[in-house]
């Protein structure tokens, strides 16, 4: 049986607690994603509210072919896209963007300025609660399309298949955006933690 069906039937039967669970789980992640498509937080809030309403109205049509989460996020992205995009969204996948600044490699393509160790430092700062907020800010500052993919894949832990469905991306483009977003984050971590040592 579909793991979401119990929740769905509770929602249909008017179980407010079931709805609250859903809101607590997905409201903020949906806001974070919506913010990527619309000009400001207030509009993002509206889009997410609209999404909840649309989801409730569409509950009977939910067939369980995707998870409830993927279904919700798809509604959100469709609404957010039609509400208005805040930046030019069509070109970026085609633009080359190296994972690492080319000046860090020598003429033979080998590292001239190799990556510095920072993994242990990152773990310590994460444990101390001093890194998660910063990582969140960096993710929010990624170019919109990279941010969307990184949020869904790495923060939300969705599968690539679900992310492609939610964002209407080809698998290849999804991977390019993921690669660039993660590469940028890695560089930001290196910059940040190198200064600490």
């Amino acid at each position, binding site marked *: 049986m579909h793991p979401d069906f119990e929740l769905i039937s509770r929602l249909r039967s008017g179980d407010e607690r079931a709805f609250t669970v859903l809101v607590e789980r997905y409201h903020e992640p949906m806001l974070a994603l919506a913010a990527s498509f619309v000009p400001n937080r207030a509009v993002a809030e509206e889009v997410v509210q609209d999404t909840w309403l649309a989801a409730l109205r569409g509950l009977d049509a939910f067939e369980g072919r995707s998870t409830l989460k993927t279904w919700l996020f798809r509604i959100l992205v469709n609404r957010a896209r039609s509400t208005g995009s805040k930046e030019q969204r069509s070109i970026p996948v085609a633009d080359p963007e190296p994972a690492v600044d080319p000046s860090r490699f020598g003429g033979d*393509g080998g*590292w001239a300025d190799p990556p510095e160790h920072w993994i242990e430092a990152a773990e310590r700062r994460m444990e101390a609660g001093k890194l*998660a907020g910063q*990582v969140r800010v960096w993710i929010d500052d990624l170019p919109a399309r990279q941010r969307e993919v990184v949020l869904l894949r*790495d923060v939300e832990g969705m599968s*690539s298949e679900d992310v492609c469905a939610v964002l209407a991306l080809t698998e290849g483009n999804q*991977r390019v955006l993921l690669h660039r977003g*993660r590469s940028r*984050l890695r560089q930001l971590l290196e910059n940040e933690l190198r200064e600490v040592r």
Partner: protein
Amino acid sequence: MKLLRRRDLVCQQAVELVTDYLEDKLSPRARRRFEAHLAGCPHCTEYLAQMRETIRLAGRVEPEDLTPQARDEIVDLYRRWRSGQSGQE
């Protein structure tokens, strides 16, 4: 420094393959080539470990807490939707 064979990857190429590698999207041949590069390159091995760590750290970013007011507002939507529904029945 060992001599490069023409088929060998250089570091600048290897870092661009990291995501395809982690997503298991390299062909078996490309995968062997990538792993052969890693075996001889501590810097790229470190780089791959850092990309894995980057993913782990992103996974530990918690969504901001929903304020009780925001939650109540949305739950109120649900109540109104419910009452609208029962009105139709």
